[in-house]
């Protein structure tokens, strides 16, 4: 089939990281093409290259067989390529109609904008999606799901020949998804080429004709028809192996003393009735879908947000954790953030400076003075132990690869010798080798007495590592299971808890 839009052997590097390596994709007219891959596999980068936000280092982009490169979103739109990104991109104080037709408002120096016709046209596109919304409504008053649908309406209004949708159903109800899918099918039949990025394999299998899978910045497969691929095949392409769990021993911590306990805890962010017990040397997993409130719970435990009701006990004593500094200095709790680049690390500072933040006060305890020599003495052994690949300790952390950056995040807490470590999405955007290393490290730490609270959306990772698993949904704990390391059994039980109505 002739391709409408092609990417051929695209490569793209950013400082310290090779995002894409010889990646190809072929989008045919009148098809819905799935783009799959784990977090950090390169999907977003590929989309940004197609829409002109990034320039590829090498490779070619072809539209209708002719090479192109865009210098920005305007050119992409003009060429007939529409995008709906993962994050919301609307002007909050503008109306729905104005947002949809933002680049086509009309009017000139002598003529005012004809808002009546703007709203009329916007209504047309909203109706296509069966959205009963008044186009004059300010976008800020909509729910996140409705905002996403407005953006889809906006992409449709461009009447693009190529439509790129990045996680379009992330916030939608099943009813809204059904309406969207029937519309997408209609567009496909009209000859539009649709790229569908999603984590929800069931949806992908339902609606997509062809699939491209990216893994670690390379093609795991390129534009294959969906007909012969089952769920396990897709998963194997995405993660490079069957969903196999390494044979970790089962451990029993039921007699270990509790190091962290939450009794009927509520937080300022909306958690309620949270009960949790973490025992010494244990890895307790917290599983949930996006938006379940796990990161927010972790941040409340470490004092970033307020606990409004209930008790938090550390080592059996009631704890008042009013700030993150308290959590670290008084209660020896550390937190590895899920957002490594914005919250976990200071990208413009060195490896040495990043890894030593929590121990500065301790190192300077005697005279109030600390030198780089003192810091190096404390950090260097850990950097070597974790086999961090860096030219020197002065290297800016922003120039390291994702895996090495994550190691620095961990070193920070190893240096601080925390007794309780909360790890939030430790393997996002990390190469397989480092991921395995981190798993071993967490296991070793817990064997040596550090208690770990593991938050991850990667169910295989959860089943491989956690001793017990908590299921969370909508800021409540829905259930608790002891891990048997049987993936199907755990998956079924956890999902069962999450989708149950009682809390």
């Amino acid at each position, binding site marked *: 089939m002739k391709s409408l839009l092609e990417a051929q052997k695209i490569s793209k590097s950013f400082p310290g990281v090779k995002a894409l390596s010889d990646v190809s994709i072929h989008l045919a007219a009148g098809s819905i093409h799935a783009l799959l891959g784990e977090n950090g596999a390169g999907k977003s980068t590929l989309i940004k290259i197609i829409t002109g936000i990034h320039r590829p280092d090498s490779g070619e982009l072809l539209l209708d067989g002719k090479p192109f490169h865009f210098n920005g*979103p305007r050119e992409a739109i003009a060429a007939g390529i529409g995008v709906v990104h993962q994050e919301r991109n609307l*002007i909050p*104080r503008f109306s729905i109609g104005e947002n949809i037709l933002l680049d086509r408002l009309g009017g000139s120096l002598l003529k005012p904008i004809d808002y009546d016709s703007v709203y009329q046209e916007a209504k047309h596109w909203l109706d296509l999606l069966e959205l009963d919304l008044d186009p004059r409504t300010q976008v800020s008053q909509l729910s996140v799901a409705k905002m996403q649908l407005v953006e889809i309406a906006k992409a449709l209004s461009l009447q693009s020949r190529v439509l790129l949708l990045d996680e379009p159903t992330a916030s939608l109800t099943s009813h809204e998804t059904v309406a969207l899918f029937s519309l997408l099918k209609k567009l496909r039949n009209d000859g539009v080429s649709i790229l569908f990025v999603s984590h929800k394999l069931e949806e992908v299998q339902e609606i997509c004709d062809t699939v491209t899978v990216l893994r670690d910045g390379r093609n795991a497969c390129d534009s294959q028809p969906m007909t012969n691929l089952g769920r396990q095949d897709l998963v194997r392409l995405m993660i490079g192996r069957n969903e196999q769990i390494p044979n970790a021993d089962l451990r029993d911590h039921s007699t270990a003393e509790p190091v962290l306990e939450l009794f009927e805890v509520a937080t300022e962010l909306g958690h309620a009735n949270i009960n949790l017990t973490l025992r010494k040397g244990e890895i307790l997993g917290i599983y949930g879908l996006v938006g379940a409130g796990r990161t927010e719970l972790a941040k409340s435990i470490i004092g970033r947000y307020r606990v409004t009701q209930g008790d938090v006990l550390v080592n059996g004593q009631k704890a008042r954790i009013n700030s993150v500094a308290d959590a670290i200095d008084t209660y020896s709790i550390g937190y590895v953030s899920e957002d490594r680049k914005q919250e976990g690390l200071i990208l413009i500072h060195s490896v040495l400076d990043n890894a030593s933040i929590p121990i500065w006060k301790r190192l300077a305890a005697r005279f109030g003075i600390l030198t780089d020599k003192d810091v190096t003495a404390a950090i260097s052994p850990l950097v070597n132990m974790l086999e961090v690949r860096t030219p020197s300790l002065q290297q800016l952390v922003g120039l390291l690869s994702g895996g090495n950056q994550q190691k620095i995040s961990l070193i920070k807490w190893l240096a601080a010798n925390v007794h309780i470590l909360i790890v939030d999405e430790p393997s996002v955007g990390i190469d397989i080798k480092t991921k395995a290393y981190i798993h071993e490290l967490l296991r070793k730490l817990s064997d040596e007495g550090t208690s770990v609270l593991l938050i991850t959306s990667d169910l295989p990772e959860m089943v491989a590592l956690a001793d017990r698993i908590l299921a969370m949904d909508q800021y409540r704990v829905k259930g608790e299971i002891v891990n048997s390391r049987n993936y199907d059994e755990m998956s079924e039980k956890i999902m069962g808890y999450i989708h149950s109505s009682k809390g």
Partner: protein
Amino acid sequence: MNARILRYLQSDWAGPFLIIAIGGGAIALLKPTFLSAFNIQVLLLAISVNAVIALSQMIIIGIGQMNLSVGAIGGLAAISFAGMMQVWELPPLIAAILALLIGFGGGLANGFIIARTGISAFVITLASLSIFKGINLGITKAQPFYHIPDSVKAFGNTVMFDPIPWLVLPMVVTVLLVFYLLTRQRVGRYILAVGGNLHAAELSGISVKSTIMWAHAISGILAAMAGIMLVARLQLGQPSIGDDWLILSFAAPVIGGAVLAGGHVSVAGTVLGVVIVAIITQALVLFEIDPFLVQVVLGGLILWAVGINRLREVRFQKSLKRI
């Protein structure tokens, strides 16, 4: 009916309006001369010029930046206006148009550098403020231009019909044009779009660079306009024009509900903010309070106004995050 009243009360200009009504009323009760024709005229003269200054900054606040060179551009345009009439003997209208062009050029230069380099507007306009002020001083050697044509002097000081001075006319026209720009013209909507969410605006195909340049160019024209008006009122081409515009140029828009992060400004609120400042300044004189305290009051007003705006903004951001 109740819903409508509530909506009006929540608008940006309701608060300032109430303050003016209550405060102005109280002052009038205590000092009846406040409402005399002469006093109203003095108030209107001050408001006319200050409103244009405030609008000049308001546009830049709308795009989410700040323009420290508003006063310097205004001052440069002012002495150019006066100088062109005195030294080159140009007719006032031509001189005014040329001075507006100087304002346009200065603003455009700001916008160009900010847009192309991505360096913060604060630093760029801090540098340009010194450059424009420097050019001003270089030309005038700190000496005013004294020979202002009588027609200009009259325009700046006489009344259209009692007690409304002529100077109100350009102010009203400017206010209406700016309002029209921000509500019904693409450039104005794009300014607010870029201020509201730069990334989203860019992804929608708006040229952020040209929008920034337009915003600063317009700001420059407005600053120049204020400078010209001030020359008419002061009857002098004073090199120090603009030196004290900075605080006022921020106070009025902020009192009027402007969000400093960009994307939300109120023309009506800004004008009312100017009125409040003018009334307070006058009241201090009427009540024989040390005029130096005006600075303290202005600073306090800014703190209070941004505090309130911040609360409203926090509530607005929270409402964006719910499911």
